[in-house]
């Protein structure tokens, strides 16, 4: 994994120099994960593809702005994708009717690429998993619904049947606890 972060970094540096081939390799190695992120937030293939395009156009143009303080290359790319998807969610007013949390929206998922193999997040993920395990079920679920599906606090109340104030405090307390664990 150390090497794969190195590999992504290598491609990103070359991309920043205008190397199209490196950019294509970066795309090939990461687009499956970013598409999944986008698809989970938007739940529509066409919108998720639009977001993916926007994200990579942005990655191409902003490659030189990346630096280590922004996190791993993969984390930086995920953020770009997520923010673009959140913008789209807002502008297209995607509402709860598109949501079916139990449906993983991964009909086309491919096992050609092992999750986490090429992607430079494995170590962080192990740690995060450990810390997430330390949370109560409600805290964990609220954070996941908000992160993966872009659900607002209000939408989470509809999903969990809890009061708005409760959901807010679950997320807040859950994240405080998570931070303590992650930064310990």
């Amino acid at each position, binding site marked *: 994994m150390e090497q794969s972060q190195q590999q992504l970094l290598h491609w990103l540096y070359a991309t920043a120099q205008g190397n199209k081939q490196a950019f294509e390799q970066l795309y090939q190695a990461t687009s499956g994960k970013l598409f999944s992120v986008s698809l989970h937030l938007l739940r529509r293939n066409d919108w998720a593809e639009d977001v993916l395009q926007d994200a990579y156009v942005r990655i191409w143009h902003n490659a030189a702005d990346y630096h280590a303080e922004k996190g791993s290359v993969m984390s930086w790319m995920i953020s770009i994708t997520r923010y673009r998807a959140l913008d789209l969610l807002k502008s297209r007013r995607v509402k709860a009717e598109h949501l079916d949390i139990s449906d993983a929206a991964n009909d086309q998922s491919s096992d050609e690429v092992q999750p986490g193999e090429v992607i430079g*997040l494995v170590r962080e993920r192990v740690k995060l998993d450990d810390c997430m395990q330390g949370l109560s079920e409600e805290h964990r679920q609220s954070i996941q619904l908000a992160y993966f599906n872009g659900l607002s606090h209000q939408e989470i109340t509809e999903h969990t049947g809890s009061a708005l104030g409760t959901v807010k405090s679950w997320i807040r307390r859950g994240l405080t606890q998570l*931070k303590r664990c992650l930064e310990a």
Partner: protein
Amino acid sequence: MKYQDQDLLDALAVDFILGAMKGAARKRFQRLMMANPEVRRTVWRWEQHLNPLAESLPVTVPNSAVWQRIQQRLGWLAPVATSAAVAKSGRYWLALATAASLLLAVVMLRPLLLSPVPQHIAVIQTSDAKAWWLVSKAERVLTVKATGAVNQEQLNDYELWMLPENGAAPISLGLLPQQGEQLLSWPDAAQGIAIAALAVSFEPRGGSVTGAPSGPVLFTAEIVTL
């Protein structure tokens, strides 16, 4: 509001990342990120905390057309008909062939006019009239010459197709050179069939494996008989 309070900053950063912060508050926070390095760093730190969640998502390979469209948006490929349209009918391509290519063909290929054998020629050019290939056919040999304008693609090939006038499926004529000149033999399958136009599709290295254009159609060109 005081942003020195780290707990408050954490809460705001998380709301921002998760998308719970909306509208004017979100814009205000974005401005604050630009102005205040501490705010910015807090957001980055939380992104690093939360983004590994995405690791548990399955990998979903996007349609290959997405990569084509990204390249088009970056100006690496000529903007073109989508492959969905290609699947519909050969007729669609004919509409794309322009009279301009005819004029240009005559001007640019004047030397060929001196040739004693009857020839069919075509110029394959971009929408802004940059010629990429000059194609001429004599008997059953196709001579294709790449101009300096061709976008060199190491991972892909450009494939030339003949569109039959009767609207039947396109017939592959072979891969186009990315530089220099190349001779292609006219395939038996295309022999004796009236030609409506030529088309060029963008394909994986080695060309389409399906027998039909699988990538986007970048160009169409009409054929002129001399």
